[in-house]
């Protein structure tokens, strides 16, 4: 190619969020035992019920074994080499407003493009930012409060709305759920909490920005969103981390509860550091996300764009309990260089006439391995349940892999379950066609890949669809050539 220098300039751009913020942190010693859990709980002045719950989770976790059924290969994780809590050192108490937040932190978020402060007002997005283990700033609290929406750091909600926490925490993902979720229950540090009251349409997009900064720490945040009857909320999370040669563990839990006629739209743009081109470093992302459509006519929609992490293990699912409830899962997952992704969803149909839609787009490049793993389970009570699943895989190059494991368990003869799958490569014809119209090879590939992902991107809130598209382009740089 004659424009090699251009291409390599693009390629060298690489991971843009790989910087480290030099900020004093309060990090506890590595290792995990009861005293660590008690320390975390004490630091947060948690009520007894929460400490008890954490301790039950820890005890349970000790009986569990790390699962290895996923199509993933990675060195063993030493859970005692990880520090389970790290927080930027604050002078005195937690910040009460943005003005009290350490300017270095604000600068970090500005660098990342997170719209705190005035930019947030312009963008109309309320942001909760989680830096290492603690939530540092929540914007737009006042305007949301007017609408009756509670949007705050999880640890704050524990203080201000303990009854909601006690009622809903662990009600979708119990502390016994799985190895990583159980670990999270024991040591989770912070995260976001949302409650949208009955009949309220949340006046703006809510957003959480997660950032891992400190070395040798794990990040274990926990998000709980409750949409009361007839309410609506759209929520977006974004994630980045510095570039490091060591792997770092991220084991989050997200629980969504939609009561009757409520709707929750949860979008993720995950761009944790994926490791370098040789597969060194990167985030191990083991995440449990589940929503329950508890009331009739409720709806939960997961949209995820997963471009980062060395290892991705996540299956955002929906428990469709309410009659006529709807679950959706739209996913784009990329695996470039030595990234491995094993992701998909679980749709559990319990109520009558429940419906679910699954659209998964997997892109593999370099030596990347991309697996779709999905479960559609229809219980005997789910008369008239319907599911439609489509899994498309796109391969760039010949050293990568795409794998599909759809599990279908239907215990109701009236249920309709459809599954379509395809695997394709970017064809020489498509590439040449675009080049003949004047597009460079890299641009042509990006355009074709974006087209492949279009069905998913159009589900994202508009301001993030563009970001997702750009991110995808960056994560696939150098994939064809």
């Amino acid at each position, binding site marked *: *190619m*004659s*424009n090699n220098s251009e291409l390599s300039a693009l390629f060298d751009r690489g991971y843009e969020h790989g910087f480290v913020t030099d900020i004093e942190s309060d990090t506890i010693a590595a290792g995990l035992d009861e005293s660590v859990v008690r320390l975390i709980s004490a630091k947060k002045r948690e009520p007894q019920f929460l400490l008890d719950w954490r301790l039950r989770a820890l005890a349970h976790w000790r009986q569990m074994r790390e699962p290895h059924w996923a199509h993933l290969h990675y060195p063993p994780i030493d859970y005692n080499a990880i520090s389970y809590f790290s927080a930027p050192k604050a002078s005195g108490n937690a910040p009460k407003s943005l003005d009290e937040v350490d300017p270095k932190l604000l600068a970090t978020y500005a660098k990342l493009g997170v719209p705190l402060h005035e930019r947030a007002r312009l963008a109309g997005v309320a942001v909760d930012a989680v830096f290492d283990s603690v939530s540092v700033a929540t914007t737009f609290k006042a305007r949301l409060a007017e609408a009756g929406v509670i949007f705050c750091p999880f640890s704050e909600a524990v203080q201000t709305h303990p009854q909601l926490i006690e009622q809903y925490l662990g009600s979708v993902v119990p502390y016994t759920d799985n190895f990583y979720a159980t670990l999270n229950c024991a040591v989770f540090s912070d995260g976001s909490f949302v409650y949208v009251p009955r009949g309220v349409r949340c006046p703006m997009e809510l957003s959480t920005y997660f950032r891992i900064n400190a070395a040798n720490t794990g990040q274990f945040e926990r998000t709980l969103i409750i949409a009361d009857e007839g309410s609506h909320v759209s929520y977006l999370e974004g994630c980045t981390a510095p570039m490091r040669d060591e792997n770092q563990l991220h084991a989050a839990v997200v629980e969504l509860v939609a009561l009757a006629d409520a709707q929750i739209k949860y979008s993720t743009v995950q761009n944790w550091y994926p490791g370098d081109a040789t597969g060194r470093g990167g985030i191990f992302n083991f995440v449990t996300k589940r929503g329950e459509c508890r009331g009739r006519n409720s709806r939960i929609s997961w949209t995820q764009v997963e471009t980062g992490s060395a290892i991705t293990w996540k299956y955002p699912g929906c428990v469709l309990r309410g009659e006529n409830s709807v679950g959706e899962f739209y996913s784009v997952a990329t695996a470039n260089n030595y990234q491995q992704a094993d992701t998909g969803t679980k749709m559990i149909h319990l109520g009558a006439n429940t419906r679910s839609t699954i659209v998964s787009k997997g892109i593999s490049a370099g030596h990347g391995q991309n697996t779709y793993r999905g479960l559609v389970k229809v219980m005997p009570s789910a008369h008239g349940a319907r599911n439609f699943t489509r899994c498309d895989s796109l391969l760039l190059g010949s050293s990568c892999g795409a794998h599909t494991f759809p599990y279908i368990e239907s215990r109701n003869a009236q249920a309709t379950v459809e599954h379509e799958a395809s695997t394709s490569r970017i*064809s*020489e*014809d*498509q590439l*040449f*066609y*675009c*080049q*003949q*119209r*004047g*597009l*460079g*090879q890299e*641009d*042509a590939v990006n*355009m*074709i890949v*974006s*087209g*492949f*992902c*279009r*069905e998913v991107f159009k589900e994202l809130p508009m301001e993030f669809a563009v970001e997702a598209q750009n991110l995808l382009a960056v994560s696939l740089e150098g994939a064809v050539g």
Partner: protein
Amino acid sequence: MSAPLLQVDGLRVSVAGTPVLHGVSLTVRAGEVHAIMGPNGSGKSTLAHVLAGRSGYAVTAGSVRFDGVDLLAMAPEERARAGLFLGFQYPVEIPGVNNAYLLKAALNARRRARGESEIDAFDFLNMVRAKMRVMQIDEALLTRGVNEGFSGGEKKRNEILQMLVLEPRLALLDETDSGLDIDALKVVGRGINTLRSPERAVVLVTHYQRLLDHVVPDQVHVLARGRIIKSGDRELALELERRGYDWLLEAAAAVA
């Protein structure tokens, strides 16, 4: 006479080790329309693809100059940005990529290459709509995926629409007439004529002379078995229509 826009000299091309073009020479000047005709498998499409820079073809001898520059040294996208357009015989579908989006990206790539700024979105839409009316293309096709689910005729008209938007200096149209009914042929012919100007040239690759009823060529060449075996004017096309290719092939064989 003006300097040639396209100068092909003794071009020899192999595909997977098999020679397909055995020394093709062709001179096209700005303002001219050339038709390259010939039986199936004569190398017509190969010639068009080699000129556009498609991979998989090995040039073993000869040269091609486009506006005085070595065309074969350029990447396909550079050729396009320099003003060379290929209308495809089988336009490929690109699912999910908006037709208008590709068109705008293509136009802006060409404009940037000429040192111009990107086109205003509003101006672009007005311009494209006007050209769609010329090509009698339903506006709904603008927002569909590129060629996705288009009928054969829609794909061909879409190719000509792209050509009209990009305003190339040289348009190579590879069997644009194949698979078109008489009405569509007329529309396509009108589209091509719209582009004709003293600064531009068109090379039509075709089996049949019927497109030439609508787009009258200045020169007609017969390409057979990898060689141009006869060149002439409009009359040659009409004669081919009456007599077929065999008499020419026999004559060429006798000379060889």
